[in-house]
């Protein structure tokens, strides 16, 4: 029995990665849930919006690197992030003007907008691959670790090490800042409140003199910022590959639905629920259990419930369970 080592191993392999992944999912799910709440459809192009924003960040990062501009220990990508956000905002506003607004004016049913967003998804997919190619791109630089496993062992004298990647630290810090800003905006500012009002009751918002086009434009701007931040953090933490961002759509949608579509708090909670489930179910528990189990009862197998190849199945199963037993999600969003 060795609780301390078990705890450190658990943190190193489960808690820390899950918190980082959960933050990225939460940011992605916030974007989906905002679109769902205000434009009233599930935006299938969200994953590729993230890919596009990240692509611009990567291009700027490479440009800065080639000019020798860096942020020292921090990744240069943070410097390029605002440019990526601006480009993504421009992209979404142009898409809205060219595509979505037409259907809004027709008062098209939401399901038509869903299909339209799939079209946008395919086009963005192509654009990103056309510019950057389908391959893996690495753009992380600066310090790799806040604490390496070896330093941690030397510091504490424990057998297990706790590595904290700088990208994980940055992910959590940036996510907290982004979420705090978003909630402040939605709950405290006049524009934010008008967005919530429009999401709650479109007719009454119109009667109160709220301009829907303005609300929609603000939504796209916020979604662009969230998507680019989420995509860049994910790309820094793992690696950048357009197809992976397309695949991220599933856990992101699962997060938004588990939390309750249209509910920002729910999106964050859902992100962490999905991330923790995914990591705990695909983690080989042998090491942690070896520390915890009494002498002689250590597990001989890996104690891995599911191979990591099947991690998307976890999102699917959670989605199914939630839709069967609590269709409004954890935080009473709109029923699906």
């Amino acid at each position, binding site marked *: 029995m060795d609780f301390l080592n078990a705890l450190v191993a658990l943190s190193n392999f489960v808690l820390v990665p899950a918190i980082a992944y959960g933050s990225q999912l939460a940011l992605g799910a916030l974007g989906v849930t905002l679109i769902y709440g205000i434009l009233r459809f599930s935006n299938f192009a969200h994953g590729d919006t993230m890919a596009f924003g990240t692509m611009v960040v990567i291009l700027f990062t490479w440009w800065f690197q080639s000019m020798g501009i860096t942020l020292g220990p921090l990744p240069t990508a943070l410097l390029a992030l605002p440019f990526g956000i601006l480009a993504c905002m421009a992209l979404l506003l142009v898409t809205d003007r060219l595509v979505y607004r037409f259907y809004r004016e027709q008062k098209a049913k939401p399901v038509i907008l869903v299909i339209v967003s799939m079209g946008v998804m395919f086009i963005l997919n192509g654009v990103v691959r056309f510019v950057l190619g389908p391959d893996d791109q690495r753009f992380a630089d600066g310090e790799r670790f806040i604490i390496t496993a070896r330093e941690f062992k030397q510091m504490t004298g424990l057998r297990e090490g706790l590595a904290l990647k700088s990208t994980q630290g940055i992910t959590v810090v940036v996510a907290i800042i982004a979420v705090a800003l978003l909630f402040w905006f939605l709950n405290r500012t006049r524009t934010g409140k*008008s967005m*919530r009002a429009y999401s709650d*009751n479109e007719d*009454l918002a*119109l*009667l109160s*003199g*709220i301009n829907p086009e303005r609300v929609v434009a603000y939504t796209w701007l916020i979604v662009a910022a969230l998507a680019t931040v989420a995509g860049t953090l994910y790309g820094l933490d793992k690696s950048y590959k357009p197809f992976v961002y397309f695949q991220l759509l599933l856990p992101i949608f699962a997060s938004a639905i588990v939390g309750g579509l249209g509910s920002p708090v729910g999106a964050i909670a859902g992100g962490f629920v999905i991330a923790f489930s995914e990591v705990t179910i695909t983690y080989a528990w042998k090491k942690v259990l070896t520390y915890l189990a009494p002498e002689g009862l250590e597990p001989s197998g890996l104690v891995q419930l599911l191979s990591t190849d099947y991690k998307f199945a976890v999102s699917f199963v959670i989605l199914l369970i939630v839709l069967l037993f609590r269709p409004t999600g954890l935080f009473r969003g709109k029923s699906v």
Partner: protein
Amino acid sequence: MSGGEYDDRGNKDLTITNPAGQGELGAHPGTGQAMDTASAFLIGDSMTGGYGKGPDILHDCTIAVNPGEIAVIVGPNGAGKSTAMKAVFGMLDLRQGSVRLDGEDITDLSPQDRVVKGMGFVPQTSNIFTSMTVEENLEMGAFIRRDDFSDTMAQVYDLFPILKEKRRQPAGELSGGQRQQVAVGRALMTQPKVLMLDEPTAGVSPIVMDELFDRIIEVSRTGIPILMVEQNARQALAIADRGYVLVQGRNAYTGTGKQLLADPEVRQSFLGG
């Protein structure tokens, strides 16, 4: 006398009749129904129209509110009461007639523009932002105002003290009567020149209904003209300066509330004797 081709035959004999210079104009004044719309502040004048390209629901229907008065639209189910209200607010396709606010023709304005012009409208259903607090509901009501609206909010709280108590609570958690107060309060936040209420007492208990009527009278005492659709015809006509009974989209009876309450025909057909 009236005999087709033989008509006018004897009249041609000018030895016995003299048609030259005979007068043809006759005086036929009035419709027999006084509308009293001369001093109306808000008037939907002889409106005919329906939803979209559908059949006409309103037929030559006139609704007017005088300054400082309460006008009530009553009538049987499906008479077009709410439709008349919507027509005045620009949510119906009018094919004829006009809507005028304070003498200005607003027939072609969108509902949002009418709000800017000073019309406050409380729809019958989903008339509050359920997920937002009472205070935020009022703030959203004042969205078009760029000036400081805290004194208006204080007035609304004076009028509906219960809202001040519950101002941090989500409006969706309130009772039916309190929700209606939020809805009216929200509409008052723009400081409207005229207030339109679509069945403000629908679905609330009789006690709450009495209280709501009292509040509406209080709002009216502040000088805001009120146009209101009501199911509870008797109570509504009792507080009305002017009542309109609609039947099948037409003005059936018009008069002061007292007149209508006293009118035997109106009593018989709509007030249950």
